């Protein structure tokens, strides 16, 4: 009667010890942080808005994160005028609308 639970407990222990080190550290909370930071922007921008995007980071993750958080607004790196969301140390010339911190600013050109 005890063999079943014992075998089950052994499998649980072995599998958990084997799997645990393979698990990733907690996802960088960039998405959650951006969702919080951009909340005022989400309330101000209409759902059909198009905004530009500028970043001096070659990693496309920034733009993808911004697109996800701001959806269904379209974040378009080809757009050079109007509202531009920037993730950079040196934002392009234009009127600063809002500073979200951590290098994220919204400017109007």
């Amino acid at each position, binding site marked *: 009667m005890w*063999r*079943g*639970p014992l*075998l*089950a*407990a052994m*499998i*649980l222990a072995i*599998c*958990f010890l084997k*799997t645990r080190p*393979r*698990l*990733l*550290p*907690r*996802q960088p909370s960039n*998405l*959650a942080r951006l969702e919080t930071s951009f909340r005022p922007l989400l309330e101000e921008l209409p*759902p*059909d808005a198009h905004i530009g995007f500028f970043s001096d980071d070659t990693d*496309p993750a920034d733009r*993808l*994160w911004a*697109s*996800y958080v701001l*959806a*269904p607004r*379209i*974040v*378009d*790196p*080809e757009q050079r005028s109007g509202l531009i969301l920037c993730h950079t140390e040196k934002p392009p010339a234009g009127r600063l609308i809002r500073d979200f911190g951590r290098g994220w600013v919204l400017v109007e050109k």
Partner: protein
Amino acid sequence: MTQASAALVTLASLALSYLGVRRLLPEARPSLTLGLTLAGSLSLGAWLFSLGLYLAPDHATTIDLVAEASLLLLLGRRAWPPLQTANERPHPILAWVVGAAALVGLLVFWDLSQRLPHGSWDAWGSWNLRARFFALVPGDWQRIFHPALHFTHPDYPMLLPAGVARTWRLVGAIPPFVPRLHAFLFPSALILLTGAAVAIERGVHSACVAACFLCLGPVPLDAASQYADLPLACFMVAAVALVLHAGHHPRERAHALTLAGVAAGLASFTKNEGLVYLILFCAVITFRRRRDLPWVLLGASPGALLSLWHKRLAPPDDYRSAWTLTLALADLAEWHRHRLAARCFARAWWSFQPALLLPLALALWWRRPSPALKWVLPLLAAMTASYLVAMVTTPHELAWHLQTAGRRLMLQIYPLGVLTLFLALPRAPASAASPPSSAP
């Protein structure tokens, strides 16, 4: 509050799906009924919501609700067949082992999904991003075709994001809990359906071992990424399990084969690879079980039609637009590309579950396979070959494409591979005594 609402919406879908499965397949064993209920609850609403998006985007939710309510009325009016009970039970030790394996799988999924609340890269970069468009601006959902959103792969089929968006619409918010719930339910259905398919042909003991392989393999780990690979695998296995069920229950043959077609059709509406599966599944049925084909085609048509409709609407992705026959033929002639792709696939299988070598060795030793192996093995082989050709002829850099997609392609057919392997093993002696139709 939104979590409670999402749970309620999911429970309502589960109830409707359960009624449908019980009505259509009253003789199905409990694991098959439960697996189909889970998969059906997620896919019926998604299909109806997608149809609504195509026909009348502003009223997609209404179309979905009216259709589901009508189905509920239709199903609830007739007398109910008696409930099947399990009279072939696994050995108690095996039952404990399966329970432990399921608990390990659940804990691994839970732990990882806590660390990846929005899923992995493609989940928030494609599937859930598109779901946000469908949920927040259903009347203007075709904005996902904007060139700035080409990275979301807007031509990918809509079943998964539409299912998430449908629940978000009904809940009235977009909590990340919903895609996580879908990411849990689809693999659960996958494990149940694989177990059911093995149990139909090889008995409940083999089914328990097969379920352990899935619970302790890559399925719970990859489920937390919220990708569409496991939902696709779920439909692939569901189609096979239903054909096997049809073979053992002649009275339910038409219903089971039509549902097998529905599953294959929904595979094509889940991922592009699903369209390949649908074609190969129909081809294998044509060659090996020709008289089943009309039912399968009938069932496959709703999913396949929406899939093709979406392909017509959406701009082609970077693979399709860059692929040419001339380049593909040149790539096919390069032996080292085949070697690289085959090595990547083999490494993926090894990383999934090295212990699978043991049942493989047993299967090769005993050579007493199920008759179903005659058509399931060619199906698996054809899928593997098609993935190999797709990788070898990729217009992208081969090493990069293999690194990003090779493992996930194998993950899609991994449960089908486990099923095939257990079909190749002899039937467990304790289960052989029970007649197939009385099995759970």
